[in-house]
């Protein structure tokens, strides 16, 4: 059964990848084999297989093995000195962000506080299931077409860091570089990342990629390959996290964010942070998510090697570098109370809908005449001139029914 699932994984990886042209005969045979086996399977097994296929591609590392760690081992690794790379096999955006926050809060500061002291730099890599992610201080409904996301079953996520709205899917790699606040720059990590990518494929990428002052990566100066956000605090720590579009289904992403023109008749007022709109594109050239994942991991191992503090586990099978070990865990299965609590908070309506600044929304022509207003604080309607709309109603609930009941809407249909 295990062997079968491995084939299934590989197969779904290929299916997901649009470059079907590379299908070999072997894959075709596997395909036929799977079809035959599928027919022989019970209904229950078929549904579990489909579920497996729906869980997205698996990262199958070729050049090294990431050592799987238990919750206890991970807690020790994070709270002790040393640099490492951590991979999460979970694709749950809330659980991955919760682990990222735990890593940020519990990474020890260097013992010496001088600017030249060795820091406990850590790299966390993960891939999320398709989801819409907004910055900590954004107005959810101004950024995301919430009704469309709900209709498509796409989760809504409010980050703990700043920045704008972005859509994730399985073709997008998320990285987080945890470092210290002293000497933190917005470009340190992306500058390195650009170099690793160019070294990998100079023919396609030389002089085309740029790490911008805002921490983004652009292609030819016109299109964004990835965005960034930052968190500074937790007693002298900082992280830079961001996305890298490798093989995303960009056409499906488009309609989930609100258009820059907004919705006719809807005006937002509030002090929240606006997203900066950008054209996005995947990394050019033929790269799989797995291979770029490896490139980032090995680039980090190379550039951040040389710390004497590093703990090298006795059974490490990493042969690329003994200095910066690579670990793997499942953020959704960790028995670490703080991670679970953060994930629960990130999932809650209080945080997703109720977070961010207070705001008002004004409905005018062509939606309605006379004009109507709704004021919202902590996600709850605190003032309105719409007859029949009770104060205290969650704004999310109002949005779900507003078109049918009041003829008003904050999303395009």
């Amino acid at each position, binding site marked *: 059964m295990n062997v079968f699932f491995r084939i299934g994984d590989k197969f779904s990886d290929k299916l997901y990848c649009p470059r079907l042209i590379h299908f070999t005969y072997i894959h075709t045979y596997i395909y036929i084999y799977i079809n035959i086996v599928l027919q022989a399977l019970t209904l229950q097994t078929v549904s579990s297989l489909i579920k497996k296929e729906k869980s997205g591609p698996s990262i199958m590392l070729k050049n090294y093995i990431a050592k799987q760690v238990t919750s206890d081992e991970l807690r020790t690794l994070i709270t002790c000195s040393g640099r490492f790379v951590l991979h999460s096999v979970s694709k749950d955006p809330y659980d991955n962000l919760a682990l990222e926050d735990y890593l940020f809060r519990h990474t020890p500061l260097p013992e010496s*506080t*001088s600017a030249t002291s060795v820091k406990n730099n850590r790299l966390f890599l993960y891939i999320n299931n398709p989801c819409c992610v907004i910055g900590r201080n954004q107005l959810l409904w101004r950024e995301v077409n919430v009704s469309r996301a709900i209709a498509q079953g796409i989760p809504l996520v409010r980050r703990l860091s*700043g920045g704008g709205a972005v859509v994730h899917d399985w073709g997008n790699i998320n990285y987080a570089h945890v470092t210290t606040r002293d*000497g933190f720059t*917005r470009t340190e990590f992306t500058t390195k990342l650009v170099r690793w990518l160019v070294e990998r494929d100079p023919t396609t990428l030389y002089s085309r990629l740029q790490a911008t002052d805002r921490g983004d990566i652009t292609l030819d100066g016109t299109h964004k390959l990835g965005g960034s956000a930052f*968190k*500074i*605090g937790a007693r002298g720590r900082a992280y830079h996290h961001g996305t890298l579009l490798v093989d995303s289904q960009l056409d499906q992403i488009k309609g989930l964010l609100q258009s820059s023109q907004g919705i006719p008749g809807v005006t937002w007022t509030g002090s929240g*942070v606006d997203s900066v709109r950008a054209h996005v594109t995947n990394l050019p050239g033929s790269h799989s998510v797995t291979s770029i994942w490896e490139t980032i991991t090995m680039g980090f191992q190379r550039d951040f090697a040389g710390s004497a503090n590093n703990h090298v586990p006795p059974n490490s099978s990493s042969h690329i570098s003994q200095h910066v070990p690579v670990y793997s865990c499942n953020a959704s299965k960790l028995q670490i109370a703080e991670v679970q609590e953060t994930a629960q908070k990130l999932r809650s309506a209080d945080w997703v809908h109720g977070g961010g600044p207070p705001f008002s929304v004004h409905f005018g022509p062509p939606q309605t005449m006379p004009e109507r207003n709704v004021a919202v604080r902590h996600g709850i309607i605190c003032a309105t001139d719409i007859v029949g709309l009770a104060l205290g109603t969650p704004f999310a609930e109002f949005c779900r029914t507003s078109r049918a009941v009041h003829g008003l809407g904050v999303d395009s249909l």
Partner: protein
Amino acid sequence: MFSSIAKSSTILSRSSFRLFLRAQSTNALTKTQLPFAYSPTGPASIKYTTQHEWLATHSDKTTFLGITKYAADALGDATYIELPEIDTEVEAGDSISSVESVKSASEIYFPIKGTVVEVNENLIENPQLINIDPMGSGWIAKIKIDDEKDLVSKDLLELEQYENYLKNHTEE
């Protein structure tokens, strides 16, 4: 980002320069603004943290909290300031606010025990006040502290110590 400033702090450390420094440092309180002018004689104590917050405490235990000029310059243009709720009881070391600038959310800590009595609502509409006058009109919160004795701590620095800290901890 954090390394770009502190150029104004090159002449420190010699005690004869202290008075000069107090008048010249960009990390000194703005005398015309509320955090300083709240009481006629000015604050009884002005302390700094290594996380780049300042605390100006007046004789009635009223303490204004803000971020230093160094921090404001390092963060860049502020786009949103998350303010604490009034009446929040703050434990020493709690994160009570955050400043967002160029996609960074920076946590603001309060190092001692107290209760939030007022927040600077001007920051809601004008977050850039943090950049224009971080040591004055860009104050974040007014907090009644429980005990002035808490201000005596090796983690709470005088202006000279803070400037020295900046000198030693930022890469040129």
